[in-house]
């Protein structure tokens, strides 16, 4: 399942909801991405996430479908926030559930790598020197390429 929302999420609640009442799961892996309070040597005031409504959801669904094709997953959840966020706030949550841990770990990493290079989100930082769009990093492209 995928969700795009302004509101914060509670990772503990999301994980508990995902495996409540199930005895077929052996492993749950989660990743939480946070807003760092420093960028380019400056203190970050806030970060605003813009997205492409409609395509974002479709792209996240495509990425989830691909993860389920590659690994034996019992469940997968991606929650991504949009709007203005402060340092320390949660941005993104990925949860994967599988019979065994390796599939859950690998699929979680795959979901994050693909999300970072394919899902249409853009970060704008507000720092002391003004507003700056975050530049995409080659290392993120490389991370996604290794799953080819």
């Amino acid at each position: 399942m995928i969700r795009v929302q302004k509101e914060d999420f509670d990772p503990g609640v999301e994980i508990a909801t995902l495996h409540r009442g199930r005895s077929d799961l052996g492993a749950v892996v989660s990743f939480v991405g946070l807003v760092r309070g420093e960028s380019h040597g400056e203190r970050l005031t806030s970060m605003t996430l813009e997205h492409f409504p409609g395509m974002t959801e479709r792209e996240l669904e495509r990425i989830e479908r691909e993860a389920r094709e590659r690994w034996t997953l019992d469940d997968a959840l991606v929650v991504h926030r949009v709007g203005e966020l402060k340092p320390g706030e949660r941005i993104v949550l990925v949860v994967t559930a599988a019979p065994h841990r390796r599939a859950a770990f690998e699929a979680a990493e795959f979901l994050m790598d693909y999300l970072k290079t394919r899902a249409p989100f853009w970060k704008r930082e507000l720092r002391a020197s003004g507003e700056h769009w975050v530049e995409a990093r080659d290392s993120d492209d490389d991370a996604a390429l290794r799953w080819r």
Partner: protein
Amino acid sequence: MRLLYFAWVRQKVGRGEELVDAPAEATTVGALVQWLQSRGDGYADAFADLKRVRVAVNQEHVDFGAPVRSGDEVAFFPPVTGG
């Protein structure tokens, strides 16, 4: 044709979306961009370095050689930076 712009592409163009009647010869994303570049300083600035611009046609990532036709929704944006 419906055009959408996001992030700094939107800021440079000066709007988030518009409906356009592109010329008949704009049958690919690349040809459409050439026409857009001639529409004013904001467009020329937004599309000055195409290595920094990504495209989606009808909400699918495509490259600049992809075909476009009237009725399509074409979105232009910088490389994505979510997560």
